[in-house]
């Protein structure tokens, strides 16, 4: 996520906030964004400073016990980037490599565990500052840079001298499901957040986009009618307006539209959808039925 040239926030996680606002108030712009750093975000949620945390936080048991994760909106994982000219295509080829790692998170323990499990060796170069680490990698001090895949794609797009010279290996060695968290016990709000994300996923599955949603309401299909509130009941059950999902798709778009706009092939990031494909296309996006 980032602020664009007009100062408006953009990003997949921002779209999740906008979708929630569209369901709740009928207006996607009714969100107040508060930037927080990694250490302060969960205390800030707990203290009521924010109501919804959309800050690329990995859902884990210990975090879910303190806050409530309403939905997972992106499947990330720790991966590896290396110069294409080295000719390595799979993670198993990395035996004996030198790896640039930022210390201070679980990243280095993950690498150590993965290499030991696979009876491979490596040499770490740990540099605290992210800028210095990046420079060292692009200068060739290490063969490989490791971080979350989304982070690697962003690094390659923004900092590589020539992005096409660098390959990001397809396999992730950890599971990093990024979730939307609400305060512990805030059940009704958690439901609204959860189904706002599901509505975006369902809309993509049924081919409803922000452009064709006005035609879609006229189609005589019981599933579409329920989702878009033509047949009432779903909004009432959730405690929001019956046109909640219509508003989400109309104002924010379906999941695929949001993905393409923020991370897809036409953006600088160019992140392949991979695990974030709909389940029919081999991904993990699977929304329970809206009925």
């Amino acid at each position: 996520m980032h602020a664009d040239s007009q100062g408006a926030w953009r990003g997949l996680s921002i779209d999740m906030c906008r979708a929630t606002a569209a369901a709740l108030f009928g207006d996607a712009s009714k969100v107040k964004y508060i930037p927080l750093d990694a250490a302060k975000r969960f205390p800030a949620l707990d203290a009521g400073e924010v109501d919804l945390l959309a800050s690329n936080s990995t859902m884990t048991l210990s975090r879910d016990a303190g806050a409530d994760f309403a939905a997972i909106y992106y499947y990330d994982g720790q991966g590896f980037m290396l110069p294409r000219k080295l000719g390595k295509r799979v993670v198993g080829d990395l035996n004996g490599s030198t790896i640039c790692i930022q210390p201070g998170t679980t990243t280095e323990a993950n690498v150590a565990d993965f290499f030991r499990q696979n009876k491979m060796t490596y040499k770490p170069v740990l540099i605290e500052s992210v800028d210095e680490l990046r420079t060292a990698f692009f200068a060739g001090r290490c063969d490989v840079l490791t971080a979350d895949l989304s982070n690697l794609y962003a690094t390659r797009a923004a900092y590589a001298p020539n992005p096409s010279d660098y390959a990001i290996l397809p396999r992730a060695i950890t599971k990093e499901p990024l979730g939307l968290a609400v305060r512990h016990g805030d059940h009704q709000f958690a439901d609204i957040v959860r189904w706002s994300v599901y509505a975006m996923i369902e809309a993509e599955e049924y081919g409803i986009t922000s452009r064709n949603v006005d035609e879609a309401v006229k189609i005589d299909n019981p599933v579409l009618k329920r989702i878009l509130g033509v047949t009432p009941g779903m909004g009432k059950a959730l405690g929001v307006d019956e046109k909640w999902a219509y508003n989400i798709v109309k104002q924010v778009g379906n999941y695929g539209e949001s993905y393409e706009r923020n991370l897809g092939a036409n953006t600088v990031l160019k992140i392949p959808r991979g695990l974030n494909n709909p389940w029919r296309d081999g991904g993990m996006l699977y929304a329970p039925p809206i009925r």
Partner: protein
Amino acid sequence: MAVESLGSAPRVKVAPWNDPVIRGWVFQIVVVGLVGFLAWYLVSNTIDNLQRQKIASGFHYLEREAGFEIGDTMIEYSPASTYARAIWVGILNTLRVAVLGIILSTLLGTIIGVGRLSPNWLLSRICSWYVEAFRNVPLLLWLFLFYKLISEAFPGPRQAISLMWNSVFLSNRGVYFPVPMADPIHKWMGLAFLVGIAGAWLVARWARKRQEATGQPFPVISASLGIMVGLPALVWLAGGAPHHMSWPELKGFNFAGGTVIQPEFTALLVGLVLYTSAFVAEIVRSGILALHKGQSEAAAALGLSRGQAMRLVLLPQALRVIVPPMTSQYLNITKNSSLAIAIGYPDLVASINVTINQTGQAIENILIIMAAYLSVSLSISAFMNWYNKRIALTER
């Protein structure tokens, strides 16, 4: 009270709250009480909070498996080693850079400091530019500069610059060079080297006595070097002269075999030495300038050359002025080596940081790191104080 104050004026009776002695005691007790209370409050509060948050305390984690890799180790280490071992690796890495830094910056600093006093205009100018340049830019920036120079200026391992008939390789992964294969004879050669040092010391003592008695100088330096190198060499020959070498060769991503000096270590050492030697140079210069001009004139009158005068007359006396401030510089090198974290040299701070991150036991780890730096610094101070006492002017 039988105590009489000076001038034997009788002690004036005053109210207890105006009596300086009583007042002094009251203030002391109050201050000690406050400090004690504060310490008690901090410790008990910390223990309470740790227990409430169910954070384990104690040093048991040191026995557990560390599970992280370290890029540059002097002793055997793997992720299966314990946290204690990982921290020990860090301490050794810190000591390695500190000890080498102290030796090299003393040598370089002395040369620069003496050079600044040279009658040669160009040499003294260059030396003073050196001092001004290095001591007026923060060390961290020098470290970044040297690290960048090494990683940007040298080629990758596959295009490494090879020297000495393909036995030494320079690349941005460091300097690779061949080393002898491990052999049991090495232990005995080490022992022979220690014996050689003892022998050299005896030779030096004997030569000094002889010179004092007869006035005849003896080539102590070459004789000592001969003993220190010759003894291990004899042991090596006696052991059948094992000469199998481990040669560095390109294998997969990088060189395998031989041994390597890594760029992080080089950048840190070069940065520390160049920076600190600027301060050492000023200390040496001030020490020499503190001597009376008559000392150098007297040395010249005795027919000593400029070099001999410096080595035999001026520097030994200047040492008395030089040693105390030098101690601070040695302590600075040791502590400044913790800037290693910025360029990725795996020193003590790096090991401790990872350990804190993985175990969550910040307090214990901070105590370890403080104890480690404190004991290294106190050892340096103790040694320098002993040395200072030894060279101090002994009045007869």
